[in-house]
């Protein structure tokens, strides 16, 4: 029974990791850089939901959409103001691009954490639950209503996103820009617009994850650090730019940490993912489902 419990809990955690990581994957797929402020999109979503529900006095269900809206807007603004120089008329950035992205997104992350700390305050706040079920038994496992709902919503959003990226016109534009920016623009696709949309979507997804988890993981200025680090590991494990890889890696990581914490050592829980990361990079550096590009 313990093993079933650990497996199911691991999968649940994996789904929530996936919700964070797919956004980062999309960003890397398009811009080939890592956004170190991604965790702060999560944090902003957590606060938008929690404080929005309290300040507006509305039902948590009505407050929930606030999070992806806030995350989306911040994502759009981040891309427009901070990331646009990476590919828009600055030929020298091609060679300093990675360093620029690291520095600017890292600095943005520090700015956001400290801004929220000073403006909103340092006290953690627990978000309102979407359902008033503090715990229930589902077979061998115990869950809170919020955790169960967050998992269901997370799965639905990930499936919808995967479908959108594969099968819609918008998704095909993203794939085109991810494969070859120049080629896409020659085909009449505006890469800057696609990049902005992707950043907005990534921000919205991370913020939604923050909102869904706010009743479980209290919102605080530094709450984004933990899911962000997991996301970076997942993105590399899954293959940078591969959504399928990210989802699979998230589930694997969640289950691995769950079992490893009990059967090996809880103290080393966060290192399991890093150990797997190193092994995967040694054996298969492109990750589970490394991205394949086309050269025009």
């Amino acid at each position, binding site marked *: 029974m*313990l093993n079933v419990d650990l497996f199911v809990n691991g999968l649940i955690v994996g789904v929530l990791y996936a919700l964070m990581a797919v956004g980062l994957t999309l960003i890397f797929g398009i811009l080939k850089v890592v956004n170190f402020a991604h965790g702060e999109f999560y944090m902003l979503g957590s606060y938008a939901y929690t404080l929005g529900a309290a300040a507006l006095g509305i039902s948590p269900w009505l407050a929930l959409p606030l999070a992806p809206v806030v995350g989306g807007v911040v994502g759009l603004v981040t891309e427009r103001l901070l990331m646009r120089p990476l590919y828009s008329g600055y030929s020298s950035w091609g060679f300093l691009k990675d360093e620029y992205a690291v520095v600017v997104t890292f600095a943005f992350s520090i700015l956001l954490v400290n801004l929220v700390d000073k403006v909103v305050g340092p006290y953690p706040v627990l978000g309102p639950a979407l359902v008033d079920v503090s715990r229930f038994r589902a077979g061998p496992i115990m869950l809170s209503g919020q955790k169960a709902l967050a998992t269901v919503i997370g799965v639905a959003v990930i499936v919808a996103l995967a479908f959108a990226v594969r099968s819609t016109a918008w998704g095909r534009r993203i794939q085109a820009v991810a494969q070859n920016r120049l080629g896409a623009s020659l085909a009449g696709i505006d890469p800057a617009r696609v990049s902005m949309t992707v950043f907005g979507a990534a921000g919205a997804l991370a913020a939604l994850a923050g909102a869904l988890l706010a009743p479980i993981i209290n919102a605080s*200025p530094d709450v984004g650090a933990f899911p962000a680090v997991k996301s970076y590991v997942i993105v590399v494990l899954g293959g940078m730019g591969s959504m399928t890889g990210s989802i699979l890696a998230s589930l694997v990581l969640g289950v691995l*940490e769950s079992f490893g914490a009990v059967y090996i050592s809880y103290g080393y829980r966060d290192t399991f993912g890093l150990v797997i990361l190193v092994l995967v990079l040694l054996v298969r550096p492109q990750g589970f489902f490394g991205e394949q590009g086309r050269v025009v």
Partner: protein
Amino acid sequence: MSKGFSRQLAVLVAAAAMAASIPANAADPIKIGVPLAQSPPGSVVQGVQVKDGLEIVKDMVNKQGGVNGQQITLIYEDDQGIPEKGRAAVEKLITRDKVVAIVGPHQSSNCLAEIEVAKRYDIPYVNTNCWSDDIRKKGYKQVFNPANYNSRVAFAMAETLSGLGVKRVVAFCENTDYGIGQAKAVAEALKKKSPNVEYHFETLDRTSKDFTPAIVPLRSNPPDAVLMMMLPPAAYIVMNQLYEQGVAPSDKTWLYDGAGLGDYPDFWQNVKEAGKNLIEFGLYHPNMGVPKLGQEVGKTYQEKTKHEPNRLIYQAADSLLLVVEAIKNAKSTKPDAIIKALESMQFSGVRGSFKFSEEPGVSYHQWVDIPYVTYQFTEVGEPVSKTTLVQGPNLPLSVDKLKKAK
């Protein structure tokens, strides 16, 4: 050079000469350094409360004319709860800001780093809220501890657990000097008080957000008591996940907190049902009685913030009052004179009267018999003032007042 310019230059030189001749310390404020966490990953919640307590006393003292005619100025540095930053903060306060004393530190890992700097420069360091026994055991004459210490908590918890007749105890402690130190101290105390109790502690990463893998195994084999030695926000997440998994508090398992979480202003907002039936080790309870000065500080805090005062406010207040009193007694702001005064004086503060012990070890420069309380929350949202007090100064432990969750 024109006549007009020469005249102006002469006036300037005269003014400069006058300024230089004014004694430097005529009305200079007394600078006291305060390293505390004002941003993550440190415990900003604690930092804010410590600052509140210090500011109340600073204003009180300055309103009464200051110390020996000099006003007090507090110079804050944000150590972020990171030991290296704490060390740098104290170095800067001493060497650049020329503070006469350090007050306010509240996280043990930072204290352990900072006291090395205080020792090097021979500056008095008043430990406001660092509980690690190691700070005392170092025996640094510059360091004074009006704060609680892990061995005191361990003694209290072992006494309560022994009274409850528990056989198996699991503790969750954070991966810091405070957390691990307290977990080990409880192990030692239980060995003496109840040698037959099976005790095990698990160290949890305070930056982590999911503790379910550590909690789930306890469901199939619940212990008689789960102890917590963690600070927010991780502590709140652990409590919520213990409750979600049905581990503690339950009809089989007590939940007992050794970190004094119950009087944090954001406690109930963050734990809700998970806090019901929590047994709490505390350093302040409205029914324990505080001196008149303490009542004044508590009232001022309540008027300013609309929250009930808690032990951090009083600890901070006492920390600053100790330095003020030492300066008055020594009639000097020289650090070594302040240290001598702190060592020898009988102090009456907001929490009571005491003299620092000279006994080496965990009692060194410590308020040894610091009063504590044990109480239990029995309703969600219950203020500390309405909780069931089961032990306090002049109130022997009565475990029969404790209720298990249904």
